[in-house]
């Protein structure tokens, strides 16, 4: 990339320094444009997708009036929100009330810059990319708390406080399970994590969702749903209790910012899951299909990569929507208890087991047996089997802690009067 640009500028006759500066601004502008476009389009599409999926699982048709198949419904809603009156009450803290949506909105969109959609289409390739992602995603909570406080509304306050406590609880298992990934990959660079997964060469089986303990992924998944405040963890905006939680008082464009940011963070988290656990932009068969077929056109490769990661991301989004349609909401004490008593110990155990697994991988001169057409280390398989048994035992142990009789004793009685 850089060479192309510098060569281009050399041809024109500009000094290389100027070329770099211009290239930087051009790239930044292009990136911003692409990101915001991708983000907005993704969010707009996701809102529609959510409404459609929720409609289909309840045997309805969903939005179908605005545009073909209701495609423009969200646009219409957005336009409505744009032109809606922005109500602000005199008792509200104006600064915090205005700042909150921005603080909530901005970080969630910045995460897009760190997601490698292809190996080239990547906003910033940070060495500590994973860390930066979690730093950003926890920043959004500040926006929620500010919204809860600045609204001067009791429901909002409860919602904001709930979001704070929820974020504190669920970021720990989230980060701990991501840490296991970083440990296995040996890097915090997100692109490197993707490449490491592909370097295993087993395709699907070298993805961290499978090659690393699947438990890691499950913990990450649950925590990420809690992180983006979706059912069953949508306590900050539990509409049956807190009306609308932290955004009760918001209307118009400020509300739209909250609304967009929620979906954007869902997209970000789903993309992160695809990247960390599902091989990112690589196909499930190892490498790229077009590459394996011998088509050697870079653009085609880039397109295929983008297709894979977008597909994986949307599968997780669809799953989150299906969960939303099925599950009831947890209570705050259950939410906390689930995190502190169950997920955090489990993720610590998991981290420990992944460390053992990593050590097993690092062993050399170990006999191998052929499996799936590859030579797989016996040590690896043995560790894996042992850890799986350990996991079952751990789950059973947790189960006995929370054991309670599930089947109620309802008796049917025939009355005799």
């Amino acid at each position: 990339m850089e060479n192309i640009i510098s060569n281009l500028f050399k041809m024109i006759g500009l000094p290389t320094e100027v070329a770099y500066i211009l290239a930087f601004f051009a790239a930044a502008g292009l990136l911003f444009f692409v990101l915001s476009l991708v983000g907005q389009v993704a969010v707009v599409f996701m809102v529609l997708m959510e409404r459609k999926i929720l409609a289909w699982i309840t045997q309805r048709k969903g939005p179908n009036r605005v545009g073909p198949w209701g495609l423009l419904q969200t646009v219409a809603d957005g336009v409505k929100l744009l032109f809606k009156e922005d109500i602000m009450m005199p008792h509200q803290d104006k600064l915090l009330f205005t700042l909150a949506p921005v603080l909530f909105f901005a970080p969630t969109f910045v995460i897009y810059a760190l997601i490698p959609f292809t190996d080239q289409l990547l906003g910033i390739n940070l060495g500590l990319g994973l860390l930066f992602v979690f730093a950003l995603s926890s920043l959004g909570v500040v926006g929620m708390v500010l919204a809860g406080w600045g609204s001067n509304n009791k429901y909002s306050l409860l919602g904001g406080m709930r979001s704070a406590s929820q974020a504190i609880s669920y970021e720990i298992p989230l980060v701990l399970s991501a840490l296991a990934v970083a440990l296995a990959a040996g890097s915090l660079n997100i692109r490197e994590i993707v490449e490491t997964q592909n370097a295993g060469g087993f395709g699907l089986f070298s993805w961290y969702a499978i090659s690393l303990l699947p438990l890691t992924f499950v913990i990450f998944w649950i925590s990420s749903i809690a992180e983006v405040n979706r059912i069953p963890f949508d306590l900050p905006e539990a509409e049956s209790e807190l009306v609308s939680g932290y955004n009760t008082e918001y209307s118009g464009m400020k509300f739209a910012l909250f609304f967009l940011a929620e979906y954007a963070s869902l997209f970000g988290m789903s993309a992160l899951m695809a990247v960390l656990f599902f091989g990112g932009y690589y196909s499930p068969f190892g490498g790229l299909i077009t590459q394996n077929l011998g088509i050697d056109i870079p653009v085609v490769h880039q397109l295929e990569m983008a297709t894979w990661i977008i597909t994986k991301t949307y599968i997780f989004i669809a799953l989150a929507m299906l969960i939303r349609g099925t599950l009831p909401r947890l209570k705050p004490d259950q939410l906390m208890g689930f995190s502190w008593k169950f997920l955090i110990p489990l993720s610590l155990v998991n981290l420990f087991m992944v460390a053992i697994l990593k050590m097993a991988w690092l062993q050399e001169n170990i006999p191998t047996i052929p499996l799936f057409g590859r030579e797989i280390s016996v040590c690896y398989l043995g560790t894996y089997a042992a850890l799986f048994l350990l996991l079952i035992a751990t789950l059973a142990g947790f189960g006995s802690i929370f054991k309670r009789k599930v089947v109620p004793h309802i008796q049917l009685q025939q009355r005799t009067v």
Partner: protein
Amino acid sequence: MTDNKVLSGIVEIGRGMATVGKHLFRPPVTLEYPEVMPELSKRFHGRLCLLTKSSGEDLCIGCQACARVCPCGDLIQIEMHRDDKKQPVIDRFTIDIGRCIFCGNCTEVCPVDCIKMLNDFELADYSREALVLDKSGLSLSGEESDKYRKEHGLEPHVE
């Protein structure tokens, strides 16, 4: 293992999601209303109307029975006089549909089966005054009345 709460919980959540997911492949049960009208039953309590004789003359005899059983007060207003042959002539018959609760009491007490309910339920209008229907707005024509009587199994009108 069966009473393990964690494992059974995972299984049950999976079962629930599968049941919900199954509905993805079922056809929708909702109607696209303005294009597809719902099928209403014959007894549907819709807009009130006045049946007429086959010739198109008023069937109503102005007995005020419907007005008197109406739970909404002075919703039905009837003014009538008798002509020289002592036959009732309806001067004014108005129904304020905007206040009607569609209970069907009036249709039940009508001695001549004149006031009836149609399947028409789209009654919205831009002003309250427009919802006060007078005799011309309420009355069906002679053919429509005959059709209504035939469809609903009423005795055909005989002079």
